[in-house]
Structures are given as structure tokens and as C-alpha cells.
């Protein structure tokens, strides 16, 4: 009964037991949470290698990467000039064209409109670039937002050139 004096004295044994049981419960819950994270087969597809050799100047291809479309365009010199001639102060989300490419003439970007996630269509819009039909966002030849509700430029994924004609996205 000495241990039980009105419950005012905290008992080390009970605290230790409760702490260990708490740690055990948390450890048991973690696998149930972590299983929702991307699995190994999903992560294995987190990088995509693309062969660029068959894409001719002025052509675009769309590849899937992490479940999203990626636009790869071999831009024409005019498109590149047009993009680089645009003063930054005309841009809603100022970014120079050079910052958006790794190697000319390749423009690689995620084809998801930064407004609400639609896929813009190519060779369209007021700026010779991309146009999102959902809510009328216009992107220029560098994929930068010029007009419409979208807040940001089309994002550039991480990618590297493995050789002259192969890139690895992701």
C-alpha cells in the first residue's frame, strides 16, 4: 500500500512500462504508414532514359515520367532566338531561357500546366509555344507562362545527358 499513497507519487516501473509500450506501438504503426510510400517497383521507374536521335528539328515528343508527360522538343533557331530575346520584365515568372535548358536545341519540361494540372497542347497559343485549353494559359517557346491564370513556368525536371543523344530524366 505504500506505493499507493493517493496516486501522487509516480512510480518508475509504471512509467517505464508505459514508455516501452508506447515505443512498441509506434514501431508497430510505422510499417502500416510506410507501405503507402512509393514502392520499390515504382521507385525503379523514377528515372527514364530517352533516345533523342530520332527527334528532328522542330519536332516534339512526349514521354511518360513518374506518371506525368514530359515534353522534349528539338527547338528551331527561331524559337530559341525568340525565347532569348524576350526581356525578363515581361515575364510573370522571370527566368532566362538559358536557365531552362541544358544543351541546345533541347527543351525538356514537365507537360503539366501549373494552374490546375491539365496537359497543354504544343505549337499553339499567342506566343508560339504551348497553350492550355482548360483555362487558357499561354506559354512561350521556352515554356514560360505569358498569359492566363497559371502562376509559374512549366517546370524543368532534373535530367542529364548520358551521351550526345541520350538523356536520363530523374
Amino acid at each position: 500500500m505504500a506505493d499507493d499513497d493517493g496516486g501522487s507519487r509516480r512510480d518508475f516501473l509504471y512509467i517505464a512500462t508505459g514508455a516501452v509500450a508506447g515505443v512498441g506501438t509506434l514501431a508497430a504503426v510505422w510499417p502500416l504508414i510506410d507501405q503507402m510510400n512509393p514502392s520499390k517497383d515504382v521507385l525503379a521507374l523514377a528515372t527514364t532514359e530517352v533516345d533523342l536521335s530520332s527527334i528532328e528539328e522542330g519536332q516534339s515528343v512526349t514521354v511518360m515520367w513518374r506518371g506525368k508527360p514530359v515534353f522534349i522538343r528539338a527547338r528551331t533557331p527561331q524559337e530559341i532566338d525568340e525565347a532569348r530575346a524576350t526581356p525578363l520584365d515581361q515575364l510573370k515568372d522571370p527566368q532566362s531561357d538559358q536557365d531552362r535548358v541544358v544543351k541546345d536545341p533541347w527543351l525538356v519540361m514537365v507537360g503539366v500546366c501549373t494552374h490546375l494540372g491539365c496537359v497543354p497542347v504544343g505549337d499553339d497559343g499567342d506566343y508560339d509555344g504551348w497553350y492550355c485549353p482548360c483555362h487558357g494559359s499561354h506559354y512561350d517557346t521556352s515554356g514560360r507562362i505569358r498569359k492566363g491564370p497559371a502562376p509559374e513556368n512549366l517546370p524543368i525536371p532534373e535530367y542529364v545527358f548520358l551521351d550526345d543523344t541520350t538523356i536520363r530524366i530523374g
Partner: protein
Amino acid sequence: MSNASLGTRVVRWIDYRMPIFTLLDHAVGSGYPTPKNLSYWWNFGSLAGLVLVIQIATGIVLAMHYTPHVDMAFASVERIMRDVNFGWLIRYVHANGASAFFVVVYIHIFRGLYYGSYREPRELLWIIGVIILLCMMATAFMGYVLPWGQMSFWGATVITNLFSAVPLVGDAIVSWLWGGFSVDNPTLQRFYSLHYLLPFVIVGLVVLHIWALHRFGSNNPLGIDTKGDKDTIPFHPYYTVKDLFGMGVFFIIFFAFVFYAPNYLGHPDNYIPADPLVTPAHIVPEWYFLPFYAILRSITFDVLFIPAKLMGVILMFASILVLLILPWLDRSPVRSAKFRPIYKQVFWLLLVVTVILGIVGAKTPSDPVFADKCPVAEVTEEEAAAIARGEMEEKKPPFCFQYVHLGQIGTAYYFLHFLVLIPLLGRFEKTRPLPPSISEPVLGGGTAAGAAVTREKA
């Protein structure tokens, strides 16, 4: 009490508007008086609840990755095992959890049988428990089909075919169960749906089970009613901590299986994808169905106008349904086997017979029990010629005691126990004297006067 902490005040505020804390306190708290003499056999109820929670939690998670389609089910399970984070652990817990659930519940049931927990006034509590068992069996059976391995497919085929034994509408029922003309994609999809649904039905039944339990409280090893405060202690902290200790022991054993023998209770054939063209050499249900499977197969002869197949099915279901009327079969004045010397022996015999039936369920019925091989009939050349001419009947081989015979004896005893021995013992068994109360056990040897103390009606 004026300086009550914030937590206490919040609890009081909520409890005044929705007395959930009062409810919990009366259910598993200090407000629930419990017999002070419960043994560790009373741990298995809370353990069953724990396993149910584990099964639902892991099951919901597995459903996020599983694909209920005959072409993809097996591969999706392998993806869980190989690619999903902790998928192998979650699946092994779920698969072994099913076995653990039955271990725990079977012990819980046999405890009820031994101590007479089904007796008045706890009949309804017992009946709800039997219904929970039936739901568990349906859930486990359908869950075993989902990985779509060989045993999944052939187990589903054999068990659904049982219903073809029903007169007149049997084939229509089977076709309805399948949603086609064999176990196939529609079958798999409905089993998946029902396997997800039934556990929540079980949760509902468990709530009713506990509700009924709280009407009169737990039975106890003496089987006598509690008489006032001296006989009881609050559930919390006494039984909460005891249940926690029991859960710890359970977890050690359970996780030893999960981590070191995860496939021991499974069947290797279920790692072979389902093939409707190739039946495995031996179709064996999961271990927890084996005694019932043995009863099903032990009826090899027609009973009056009932064909053998139908009789097997009837007896298999009857072996569980008989538990529903057990409270009325047992008329003994005493609940606990502690004071029933003959019933005690009969109880252990029933347990052994059930285990033997389980072994029989795993064996090929025609295999001999004691020898390596059953002898064949010795036929001389002359006799063979006579048989060929049709002048003599085929010679029967000498009798050989096969597993099917053992199963028949076991089945007969199983029903004898419930339908004959229990009612007879209730009438004629000389019971030992009951103690006057839980807190005053009988001192010394029982006296004749003590024998006169019978169970009080509640």
C-alpha cells in the same frame, strides 16, 4: 478537486455531453467489477479482440496493393512481398494472424466449455460467440482464396461444391456462388468484397458479445455467481495489466512464427499460381478447418434416404451448430468442471477427439492408421480364374483400419459427447460441493452438507 488539471476538465466537459468515458469505465475500467479469481484462461477473450484489430489493420493496408483479378491476383501478392515497403511483413502478419485468431478463439471456446460459461444466464453471450466463429470461418475461407494459388483455387472449388449436396436447388446455389460455371474471376471478386465486409460484421458482433457479457459479468473458474464486493475487483487496473501481460506473451510466440516460420502453417502449393487444369495431389484446408473437414469426409455411406455427400455436409455444419443448443443440453446444477469429476474427464476426451479429427482431416482417408500399407486380398490362381469366369465374387481384402474409420469413430464420439453424454451427466453426475462464495473457498474436504449448495438463479 478544484485544482483539476486541464485534461480532467476536458474529459468532464465531454463526458457530461456524451458519456463516452463513463461508458469505457463501465466496460473496461475501474467501474466494471470483475471476479477476483479469473485465471489466465480468461486472457483469451481480449487476445481475440487484439488479433481482430491486427487483422483489420493489416487487411486494409493489403487491400491498397492487392488486385482482385484472376490474371493479376497472384502477381499482386508477389509485388506486396517484394516491392511494397514492409509488404512482406504485413502479409506474413495477416496470414499468420488468421491462424493466431483461431488458436486464440479455440482456446477461448474450450475454456467456456470447461468452466460452463455458456450456462444460464449467459446463453445469448455464448450464441453470439458461436455466430462470431461462423463469420470468422467464412472470412478466413474467402481470404485464403485471394492469393489465387493452387490451394486457394482448389479449396474454393471443393468447399463451394459442398452446396451442390443440397437437394433440388444445390446446383443452382453453387452456380450462384460462383457467378459462372466454375470458380473464376466473378468468384474471386465477390470473395474479395465479402472478405472485406465480414470483419466489420464481426466487429459489430463483438460489440454485442461484450454487451451481453457485461449484463452478468464474467464467469469464473469456480462457476459460481459473485456475491457482493468481496468477490470482485475493478477491471482496471487489475485485469487491464493482466491482459497486457498476456498480450506480450502472445506477441512473442506470434512474432516468432511471423519472423522465423512464416510459411510453416501455410501450404507450399499456394505458392504455385492457380491452375484450373491441374488438381494438387492432396487438397488440404488450413489447419483450423481440419476437424470439420474430417467430419465431412467420414460419412461414406447413405443414412436412410439421405445421400452420403449431403449427410457429410449436414454433420459438418451440425458440429458447430450443436454449440448453439448446448446451454439447453447441459442441465447440470453446477457450471464449472472443477466440481464435475466425470464431466472433467469427458471434456479432455472431447479435446483429444477434436485433435484426432484434425489429424484425420490432414490425412488421405484410405491410408492405414497403424501400418505402412493396407494389405490386398490374397487371391490364388484358381480363385482368380473363378472370378474371371464370374463363378465367384471378388475377394474382399482383409479389414484394414484406415483414417476414414478413425474419422468415423471421432465423428461419432463428437456428437455422442454433446447429444448424449452432456444431457446424461447433467442428470446423473454426482457433483462435488461448491464453495459458498469466491472469497470463501471450501476448507478441507467437502462435506455432504456442502453438496446441497447449488447454483443460485440469477
